[in-house]
């Protein structure tokens, strides 16, 4: 089955990435990448509208190959979300730390994620999983050198992840779905940095360009794989154990985020915590919990990515961002400060944003099945909020010393406006994002209504 629209978008991104990589001027490369991504978002929205307006058939056959224009239900928004992630990762990427080849890698990584999320065949999915890891590893090696600890950690952890997903895919193909699912869950846990398999991510977040971090982590191919491939098989004890591990990750990472002394690591633990909570929600038997987890994924993809990229933009102005003592001025960079706060809080369930809806569904859905863990998830969200507020106060207040940094550029403001609009409008009108006719559950397992 080929999904025409997502595959077209992925192909167009890959072509754009080639063009971007050839540029010598970082500024122009970034403008080109941002324009290409913005154009693709516009094109996708237009085509999507045309599909609905013209009432085109959802599926058709082309030269003997079964084709579908786009996925239905909750999966329909995924290419759009991935493109907005790309826009964030590029539009707010500092030129100094994101040379043209890094920008091209970001585009390619997200193109692969879009392609991955339009498939449901394990072998091809595992190959794409491996391709994205290879791409990022190559770029990291180029930037950091072979002797770097982050390169070694990334290779070791993600090497196991790629091996596990390929072995799992072979197991699926050879009729051993339980072993396949176990291997895929291992790969997902490594990629999503579920405790105790998280060791590579804090190192990666400390050293790698933040745009690359966002491109690798935010599209969350693991979430998709967990829902579409493992969903049927990992029922019962395995799902329960994975959910408990994921929830513990969410809670422990939230607490660890509060004690960090630099902004990158604080943001990294926020990502790990959010990812853990999403993985926990996906293993819920309840439709409400699963829907909340999928929505949380989309919120995290936009809110937390925006939060991380705002740190990247601020770092380009000020250098290393320590959280040991206050060192910024709200008055100098008011729009950047507001964006930082809103994006951070949107990802930790600020009322009025899409994050609130996602969190509400996630907690309400999980409390029947996991009453104690459900309450613990609430505490994790509270701690994540403290992490965001502490980072905000330390980075944007508390001193009269100013380094003269400027507020958001036009490109940065434009990108952040789009993301904030999606989170706020989505928060006001969430029903359009919750597709009752195609709930986030695998077709063969009817979801429980609890």
């Amino acid at each position, binding site marked *: 089955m080929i999904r025409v629209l997502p595959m077209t978008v992925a192909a167009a991104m890959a072509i754009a990435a080639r063009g971007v990589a050839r540029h010598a001027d970082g500024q122009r490369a970034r403008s080109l990448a941002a324009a290409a991504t913005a154009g693709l978002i516009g094109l996708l929205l237009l085509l999507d509208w045309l599909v609905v307006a013209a009432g085109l058939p959802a599926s058709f056959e082309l030269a003997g190959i079964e084709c579908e224009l786009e996925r239905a239900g909750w999966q329909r928004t995924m290419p759009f979300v991935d493109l907005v992630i790309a826009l964030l990762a590029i539009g707010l990427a500092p030129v100094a*730390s994101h040379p043209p080849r890094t920008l091209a890698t970001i585009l390619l990584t997200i193109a692969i994620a879009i392609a991955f999320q339009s498939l449901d065949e394990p072998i091809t999915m595992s190959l794409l999983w491996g391709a994205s890891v290879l791409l990022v590893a190559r770029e990291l090696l180029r930037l950091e050198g072979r002797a*770097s*600890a*982050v390169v*070694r*950690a990334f290779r*070791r952890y993600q090497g196991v992840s790629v091996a596990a997903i390929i072995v799992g895919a072979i197991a699926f193909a050879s009729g051993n779905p339980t072993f396949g699912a176990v291997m895929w869950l291992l790969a997902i846990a490594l990629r999503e940095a579920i405790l105790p398999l998280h*060791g*590579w991510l*804090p*190192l990666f977040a*400390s*050293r*790698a360009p933040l745009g690359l971090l966002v491109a690798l982590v935010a599209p969350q191919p693991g979430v998709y794989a967990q829902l579409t491939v493992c969903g049927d098989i990992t029922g019962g004890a395995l799902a329960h154990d994975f959910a408990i591990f994921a929830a513990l990750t969410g809670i422990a990472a939230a*607490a*660890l985020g*509060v*004690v*960090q002394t*630099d902004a*990158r690591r604080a943001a990294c633990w926020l990502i790990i915590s959010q990812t853990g909570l999403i993985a926990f929600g996906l293993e819920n038997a309840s*439709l*409400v919990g699963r*829907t*909340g987890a999928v929505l949380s994924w989309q919120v995290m993809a936009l809110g937390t990515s925006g939060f991380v990229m705002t740190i990247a933009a601020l770092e380009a102005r000020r*250098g*290393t961002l320590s959280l040991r003592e*206050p060192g910024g*001025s*709200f*008055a100098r960079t008011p*729009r950047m400060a*507001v964006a930082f706060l809103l994006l951070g809080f949107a990802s930790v369930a*600020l*009322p*009025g944003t899409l994050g*609130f809806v996602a969190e509400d*569904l996630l*907690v*309400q*859905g999980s*409390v*029947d099945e996991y009453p104690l863990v459900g*309450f613990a998830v*609430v505490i994790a969200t*509270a*701690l994540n*909020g*403290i992490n965001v*507020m502490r980072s905000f*106060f330390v980075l944007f*207040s*508390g*001193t009269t010393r100013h380094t003269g940094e400027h507020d958001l550029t036009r490109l940065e403001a434009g990108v952040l406006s789009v993301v904030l609009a999606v989170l706020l409008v989505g928060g006001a009108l*969430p*029903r359009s994002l*919750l597709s009752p006719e195609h*709930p986030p559950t695998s077709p063969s397992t009817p979801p429980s*209504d*609890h």
Partner: protein
Amino acid sequence: MNDPTISGLITTTLAAPTLACAALALPSWFGAKLRERVISGIVGAAFAVAAVASAAALTLLLLSGEPLAHLSFGHWFDVGHYDFHITLIADHLSLPFALFVALLVGLIGAFSRRYLHRERGFLRFYLLLALFGASVELVALAGSLDLVFFGWELVGLTSVLLIAFFHERPKPVEHGLRAFLTYRMCDVGLLGALIWLHHTAGTTAFEQEHAPWAGITPVADAGAAMLIGFLLLWASMGKSAQVPLSGWLPRAMEGPTPSSAIFYGSISVHLGPFLLLRAAPVLMQTPAVAWSVIAIGALTALHGSFVGRVQTDIKSVLAYASMTQVGLILVEIGFGLHYLPLLHIIGHATVRSLEILRSPSLLHDHHHLEQAIGRQVARAPVHVDKLLPRAWQPWLYRHALERGYFDGLLRDFVVRPFLAVWRGFDRADRWLADLLAGRDPESPPPEERAGGAR
């Protein structure tokens, strides 16, 4: 009752401040510079409209003889069996409170126009004031605990941002973060209560049974009712600075005086009692919770009264006076009273906000008074000296100076152990990550070797 006029008026009460927020936020995000007169005009007009609408709704409700009116906006979102229903409620609790909030926020807005003239954060103050007003109106008019939580969280956020209003000074920021920590940990109680209500009762909607106004539907299971009651009490304790979580309140006075008046003298600090008034059916169902409310309220009243006597600045004195009165209001609620606590809230909030607004002119006012009467103002008699045994007085004095040791106890037995444990985990995690990455755990981290992170 579902009167379309009352429904329209309630909607207006909530919509006017919300639109004021949008009218201030959107242009400033896109770089427009608004004049001070326009900013204060928008906020003033919004709350004037809200005050008129809520007064009219209250009059119509009283004339109709009906106890309450419901206004349903349908489902905000729904999945499976779960739905988030948006319902507003007009009753003898919500409308007086909504009217009072609109009047007070409008007055504070008018006062602040001169007080904050040419202040760099003028727009920020008014934006947060409008957002605060809209959030409190939502808490007041909410027809379910879900909606209360929505407004409750936003009240906390605006409160913290206003404590840290003078963001270039470290102390306001530190105190803002402290308040946020308390709010956030106590909001867990409210969220936990509403989750458990959904789990056990299937709804968080307020219904009117025997009380003079609508409240949380009692839960059949006594254990669940007790859990929900204690969670709601925990939520109220944080927002209303009840012992032992009271330390943030005097520190919150670092914000601009008008915001101190509206938050910690009048409205925000009374939201805890307001929530407990809505939770009255659950309190009456579980005597253990009701007695806990009384005990915490009484302890806070005593604590506030003693500690307030040794404070050396007027804003701290007023903060502890607020705490004392809110403690007494909790005692009234614990005893199952309804209209007395409501009147106490409105009366205390009015007097206290006036006192806080006048506090920067305290010496000036004092001189004026002495000039007018032609002699020194006599010191108020201190009855407590006569009532307490002499042997207790030094101990109590020390206790008051140390603010009841609550701050120290929380710091030493909650915050520091928490941070120590997780810092230990963090160090262990870094060590393990280094080991797995093949780096010598004893060598300095890469960012230090490279002279800073990328």
